């Protein structure tokens, strides 16, 4: 496989560099738009480099940080709680599914697996959650329905099964109960798979906007992604929430009323930190997330 000639390497690197640039340029455009004056965006259009530079959008956001601050708090809270309880409940179930001495292992595996094959779809869930459980406009609706991802349960189960069985047997001989073995032995040995699942659960929750689409009307509960979605549809609501008025007392000149630059600034503020944090976990991505992991 070793390439002897130099030319193919240059070609491969060329493609790699172009593709990498294509991945980055849209971000540069959005950041540039967030640093532009609204009037330049509507007249001259989007640019790679803003000219003239304007902090109008960021001043607007940070003059009234309650909207984005609250949304950040909601998102962090929901993500942390979901990851903690999701990981706990999923690994507990995975442990039971991994143990051969569990009398109802086969039936329980099927009970879990079947939900991956068939689902009632969004309409029955929607009616059940809104009409019967009455969970709309609660933190619970953002957390509880998404705690268990069966795919991850089987991933963790497979990891438990691959741990050396001697450890479990000697613990049993020493008189440890199954619950103790799970919490004291299986969990501490499973950090790699737990880190992977935690990462993907966190990312899924951080990026979740459809829960808001179906179940949230109260703007105080909007997580970041749904906030971004809703302000893109209706920027006026955002301006109102930020106490902007274009008439009457304290009105600001029309050319200074933030527009798409504000939208883009909100996108930058909501996304930027995650783009720094997520790649740090990159080494965990593929390990354990092979699709064959659910087989058996």
């Amino acid at each position, binding site marked *: 496989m070793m390439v002897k000639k130099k030319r193919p390497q240059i070609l491969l690197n060329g493609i790699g560099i172009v593709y990498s640039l294509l*991945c*980055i340029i849209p971000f540069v455009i959005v950041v540039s738009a967030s640093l532009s004056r609204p009037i330049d965006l*509507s007249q001259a259009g989007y640019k790679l480099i803003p000219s003239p530079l304007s902090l109008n959008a960021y001043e607007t956001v940070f003059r009234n940080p309650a909207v984005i601050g609250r949304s950040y708090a909601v998102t962090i809270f929901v993500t942390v709680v979901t990851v903690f309880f999701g990981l706990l409940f999923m690994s507990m*179930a995975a442990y039971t599914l991994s143990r051969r001495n569990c009398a109802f292992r086969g039936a329980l595996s099927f009970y879990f697996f079947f939900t991956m094959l068939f689902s009632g779809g969004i309409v029955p869930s*929607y009616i059940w959650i809104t009409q019967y459980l009455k969970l709309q406009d609660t933190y619970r609706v953002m957390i509880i329905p998404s705690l268990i991802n069966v795919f991850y*349960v089987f991933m963790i189960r497979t990891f438990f099964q691959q741990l050396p069985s001697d450890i479990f047997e000697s613990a049993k001989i020493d008189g440890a109960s199954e619950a103790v073995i799970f919490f004291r032995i299986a969990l501490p040995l499973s950090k790699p798979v737990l880190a992977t699942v935690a990462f993907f659960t966190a990312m899924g929750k951080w990026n979740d*906007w459809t829960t808001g689409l179906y179940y949230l009307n109260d703007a105080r509960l909007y997580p970041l992604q749904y906030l971004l979605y809703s302000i893109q549809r209706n920027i006026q609501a955002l301006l109102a929430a930020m106490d902007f008025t274009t008439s009457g007392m304290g009105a600001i000149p029309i050319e200074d009323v933030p527009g798409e630059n504000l939208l883009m600034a909100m996108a930058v503020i909501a996304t930027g930190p995650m783009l720094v944090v997520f790649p740090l976990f990159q080494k965990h991505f593929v390990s354990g997330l092979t699709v064959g992991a659910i087989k058996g």
Partner: protein
Amino acid sequence: MAGVKRNRLKTSSLHASKIVDNIHFAFLALPAAALLFVFAYIPMSGIVIAFKHFRVTEGVFGSPWVGFKNFEFFFKSADAWRTIRNTLGMNFLLIVSSLICNIAFALLCYYLRSRRAIKTYQTITIIPSFLSWVVVGYLVYALLKPSGGIINQIITFFGGTPVKWYSEPYKWPALLVIINLWRGVGYGSLFYFASLMGIEHDYFEVAALEGANRWHELRYIILPHLLPLIIIMQILAIGNIFRADFGLFFNVTRDAGPLYPTTDVIDTYIYRALMKLGDIGMSSAAGLFQSVVGFVLILATNLIVKRIDADYALF
């Protein structure tokens, strides 16, 4: 005598400890099992709504039966054909384009000699897959906005006429393929890359001795090595071919009505029928149709794979 007694004691205590074990197992599995019961199995029973004229006041089980009326309405509407065609057609395009590009990029990284270069490209190209479809929608808008978007600026710079992207449906199949690749290839290729790294180098040395060229390597060593992974990925994809990526079709297109001829898929249709029109009959019929066909497809593809080679089957 004493020996027998001790033995009986031992078996009964063993029996008791087995019961204790199983109580522990049940306790450990209970939270997840209960959550699945509430959020997966109860909604499953709600599929009866598709056969009812649902009234909020009478609830799921009190509402009157209407047989297959809801399905009739759905399949007789022009939307049914359009959404099914778009779902299948677009998913087919997305599956094939992703497969080719994921493998191509994995191979590119595999053939690169500089480890630093591989790491850099992989780290950068994976970034888009961390983004929600909402943020992707923002990025796409900055590019495609009819007046002032980057793409139209480039078009006018070269003397072309600007395109009204959000009202020209027949440009969107290609756009959605590109956007989906942009977001997914960096991440999707990692699986194939990881698999490629597992190929023993001896194979290549032996092949080189026998005078194999690059094409032979690809055909007789690399492709066979990737095949199990390709098959499993494709089973999953085909099993889900009736399920469209809601965020891509709904948000990236800005839910623009003029684009529906090519971008309206079953999932966006169900959303609209349920949330915008409040037509529970139609949306539940479309949803049940989607679930049942998806279920059958997964079982069928798995069965076919099992026939060919049981090792590659999913279950």
